[in-house]
């Protein structure tokens, strides 16, 4: 019975590669998808990039981001799952800003 429950839960959680690209005038940022942080590294042109394969469970994918930067620094998290990209954007006013956004599975063309 316990094995059946575990198998059922595993089948609901689908593993997908999540790619992140952070651009803008911010100093640095971090993001967690479904409470799993994705390591970000500064790349050649100064953007932050990272990717990780995570179990994603329907019906929503929760993204929690934090950025630090100076007054009115813009930030843009590009989240790519299943070749579909969604964005978390904004401006920093007080040194640091936290966002939490819920994306429905269908937003990334994932089967529920």
């Amino acid at each position, binding site marked *: 019975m316990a094995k059946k429950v575990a198998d059922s839960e595993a089948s609901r959680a689908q593993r997908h590669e999540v790619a992140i690209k952070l*651009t803008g*005038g911010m100093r640095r940022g*971090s993001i967690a998808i479904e409470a799993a942080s*994705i390591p970000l590294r*500064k790349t*050649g*042109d*100064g953007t932050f990039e990272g990717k990780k394969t995570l179990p994603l469970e329907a019906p929503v994918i929760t993204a929690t981001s934090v950025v630090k930067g100076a007054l009115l620094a813009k930030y843009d998290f590009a989240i790519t799952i299943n070749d579909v990209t969604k964005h978390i954007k904004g401006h*920093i006013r007080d*040194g640091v800003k936290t966002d939490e956004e819920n994306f429905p599975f269908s937003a990334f063309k994932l089967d529920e």
Partner: protein
Amino acid sequence: MYMKPILVQALLYILFLACGRSALAQFPIHTAEGKSGLLVAGGEGVSLLNYEVSESRVGVKTFWSLPTHSVNEPLTEIMFDAGFSATKGKRDLFKGGSFTPGFDLGLTLLHTLEKQPNRSQSARSGYHQFFGRVAVDMVERKVAEPNDEDTLTLDSLAGTSLGLGGGYNHAFTENLVWSWSALAQHHWNSAEGLKEKDVCLQERTGVDGNGTPLAVASCDKRFIASLTDEWRGQLRTDVFWVARAFGDESSATLGFLTSASLDVGARAASSFNVSIGPTVQRPEHPTQVLFAVLLEGVDLANNAGQSPKFRDRVRLRLYVGVPFEFLK
């Protein structure tokens, strides 16, 4: 060295492709007789066409860092920057299709420690940043070396410097950063303390219709001396403050930059320099300076003895930084 205009355009295009999206991490401005030690961590690799009243420069930067999971983790990065710049005192990098050579390369290691916010500071806590840097620059120096009382040898030398520097940036908040840095450089063919003079090669002489003597000559600015090698150093401090926005979220921001430096050398006398003035930063990129007007005092005590009048030790520096992204 002559470079056809089309090659100049190709060079700029290549630099543009190499940099990708533009952003800002380091101050490219020369202020108070040196490059500002402010290194604001984060931001994107920058590619700027910098133009100042005294010189122009095309530069690129590229970054690598260790991965982090949280914005409160320490951040270690390496920055490589390169630029082509005009000889100091010459206003144009490309003048009449002619490329005035001068380049600089730098490698900087940065380590940033985030200040942990407490309840009262909340989001306004800043960071501590330590950096070490090695840099080399080279510029053409034209000389007319005296052989004896009657003859001069015309030559073109490479003025080269290799420097090691390091410093500390204290960010009180994300908008206010105070930097301290020290730099030691060895200069080959140093022209420090020397002034260029006009050296003319007389090509033809004659008289005009009224019998007035004429001389046709091609003239060049050269140092009338044998250039030597020397060690030089600089201690400096800089403060940069992002003060306010001009309007809404998509507006530019107003800032202020203050610098002070002490230059010491084995050959030339020490000089104390200061600089202060407002800056305008790019919209949505509050650490990327587009314009600056800096009032500078150079060798305020006239230790070098080259500016006996006080007004000759004060100047206005205008700076314009154009991201390659704007040229699309």
